[in-house]
């Protein structure tokens, strides 16, 4: 990893001051800050990042997922946050196991996460605990399997 730790970043300092055990790993690469959180801390951290003075990440740009099969933990979910008033960005990351990947939803904090999380559920099979309406968004409702997983054949299962 070429990323270097970023413990001196003011965003990190604010989060650490709020809860010292919240962030597992920090890294900064070309001015982009990434925070790795334990999955069970995500919902609380989201509320803090959205509301706390000096953070104010009021815009969730994107949620993306990565399948690192066969490495364990297999899945990685990235939350790209933007603070419109303070003009700063941060990336949250949680690592999830291949067996029953589940993470708490951030829809109560950022409502735009609704469709993002449905898309990740649709294509990766990662469940979002507490999501108001978690079902497929792109694939047909009766589709079997999660097509963007690395162990899913590109051509699908044809009969």
């Amino acid at each position, binding site marked *: 990893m070429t990323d270097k730790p970023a413990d001196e970043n003011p965003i990190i300092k604010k989060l650490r001051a709020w809860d010292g055990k919240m962030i597992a790993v920090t890294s900064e690469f070309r001015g982009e800050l990434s925070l790795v959180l334990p999955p069970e801390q995500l919902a609380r951290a989201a509320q803090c990042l959205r509301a706390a003075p000096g953070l104010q990440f009021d815009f969730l740009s994107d949620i993306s997922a990565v399948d690192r099969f066969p490495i364990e933990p297999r899945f990685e979910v990235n939350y790209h946050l933007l603070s419109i008033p303070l003009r700063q960005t941060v990336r949250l990351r949680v690592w999830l196991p291949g067996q029953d990947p589940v993470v708490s939803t951030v829809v109560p904090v950022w409502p735009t996460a609704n469709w993002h999380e449905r898309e990740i559920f649709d294509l990766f099979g990662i469940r979002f605990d507490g999501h108001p309406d978690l079902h497929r968004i*792109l*694939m*047909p409702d009766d589709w079997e399997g999660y*097509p963007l997983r690395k162990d*899913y054949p*590109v*051509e*699908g*299962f044809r009969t």
Partner: protein
Amino acid sequence: MGVLDQRFEKNFMISSVDYVFNWARKSAIWPLTFGLACCAIEMIASTTARFDIARFGAEVFRPSPRQADLMIVAGTVTLKMGPVLKRVWEQMADPKWCISMGACSSVGGPFNAYSVLQGVDRIVPVDVYVVGCPPRPEGLFYALLKLQDKIEQMSLAKRPTEVRLQPEMVEQFKRGVMVAQTPSPR
């Protein structure tokens, strides 16, 4: 006998019912507005003044399958779109025809993927396939002329689907196709 006397002798023509019906059907094909991907852009371009599909009598694109008799499948058919396409096809009134425009709708094209139907002929009967990615408007016009030739062979005694499935028509079509055939290859 008054005004009607001696009026009709010069105005009658003798023909067969098949000929008149086929002539009417092939000369005014009403396609369905059914663009799925980039082939739709070429289909739209073929309606414009530069290419002008109206020269072949097929310029009236209808937004409703009830009013159309030709479905031009112009673009990639995904598995999610497949049931919709089949339903639109079944909503069209007989006699109806189908042109598969481009590589995607004919065989899946470059999208050999889990989400793409590998050929629209798996769900609807196709009369004419157009090669190209996407085909030029001239390609679509050639398909339209081929379809008109096919409509000419229809008969009231047979349903259009039976005409479509005659094996000798396929053989005749293969003889008619000349793809990259040079008389004296170097």
